[in-house]
């Protein structure tokens, strides 16, 4: 709890906002490029450093959407800057603020953490050298896929044919049946696609994290959402494979990156 009579100046400096860990022992200022224009600098330990700014030991919180987006983008810009400068970074998630504790200042706490966790951090930096993260999201159009299934599935084709010549009551029941059959076919098709595409992507990358799919729109549903780690110079190869998937009737691919390896630095 902050004392009420504490001045702004005293509170400032009690926290260190963390952007990333970089593979450099340099003590350097990156300038006023941080969130809200804060001065960003490094806290080195041996040959690694934490990229931080000085702030009160309070989280960034707001219900102003625009402001939050600005913060997130500023965070990413600093991580990008460090990434370009030092080649390899371990990004830290937004709003991670180290505070002072039990008489130990925030800056010392950051340094102590680098020291305690040095082997692990150094190991991660080495493993991520020259690599980047890419987002791969694959969508399909259920309309197009369903139409194609109608052509290829004998069961569905038979039902469709039967409905045309049947009296209304029976046709209605068979329409219900057709809906169920198509749903089942679509589900197994989705499973098959997931396995096939996953395998095709896997051949071109070092590591994959399967992310939750997000709600798409009706004619473009997300069927898979992957974070992929790969050497930057292999992105073209992965892009070529994704181009093939993108060219299949009813499918589309979103390929984003290169990002700092956010998904591959957790414990």
């Amino acid at each position, binding site marked *: 709890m902050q004392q009420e009579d504490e001045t702004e100046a005293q509170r400032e400096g009690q926290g260190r906002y963390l952007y990333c860990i970089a593979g450099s022992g340099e003590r350097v200022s990156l300038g006023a490029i941080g969130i809200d224009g804060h001065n960003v600098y490094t806290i080195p330990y041996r040959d690694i450093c934490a990229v931080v700014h000085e702030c009160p030991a309070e989280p960034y*919180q707001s219900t102003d959407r625009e402001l939050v*987006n600005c913060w997130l983008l500023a965070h990413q810009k600093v991580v990008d800057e460090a990434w370009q400068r030092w080649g390899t970074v371990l*990004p830290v*998630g937004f709003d*991670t603020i180290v505070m002072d504790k039990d008489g130990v200042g925030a800056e010392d706490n950051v340094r102590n953490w680098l020291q305690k966790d040095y082997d692990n951090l150094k190991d991660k930096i080495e493993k991520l050298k020259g690599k980047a993260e890419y987002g791969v999201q694959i969508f399909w159009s*259920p309309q197009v896929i369903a139409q194609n299934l109608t052509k290829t599935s004998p069961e569905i084709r038979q039902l469709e044919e039967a409905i045309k010549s049947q009296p209304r009551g029976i046709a209605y029941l068979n329409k219900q049946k057709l*809906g169920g059959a198509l749903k089942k076919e679509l589900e197994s098709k989705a499973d098959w696609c997931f396995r096939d595409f996953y395998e095709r992507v896997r051949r071109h990358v070092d590591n994959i994290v399967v992310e939750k799919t997000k*709600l798409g729109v009706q004619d473009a549903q997300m069927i898979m959402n992957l974070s992929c780690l790969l050497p930057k110079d292999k992105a073209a190869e992965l892009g070529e494979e994704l181009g093939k998937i993108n060219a299949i009737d009813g499918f589309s691919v979103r390929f*984003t990156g290169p990002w700092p390896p956010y998904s591959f630095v*957790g414990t």
Partner: protein
Amino acid sequence: MEPTRDTHYTLVDLLDRVLDKGVVLYADIIVSVAGIPLVGVNLRVVLAGMETMLSYGVMQEWDQKIRAVKELQKAGLVAYARATNLSGEMTYAKSGWH
């Protein structure tokens, strides 16, 4: 195809990463309230709002497509319309997969 970094969708993709991922620190030196590290707790709510807004923009597009389908139905292109109706059921079924 080439990877992109600068479209509307890549922004959403990126913000997800910045918000949810990254190096994990010992919780005892991270700013927290009542023992719960406050890593973007409120922000998630804000972002949820943003996604709704985005989907609203997308929904307008969807709405136009539905209208177009209705026109097609009127024009007697039954096969296309039927596939579209079935996809309506698929949307519901999909929530069961994931």
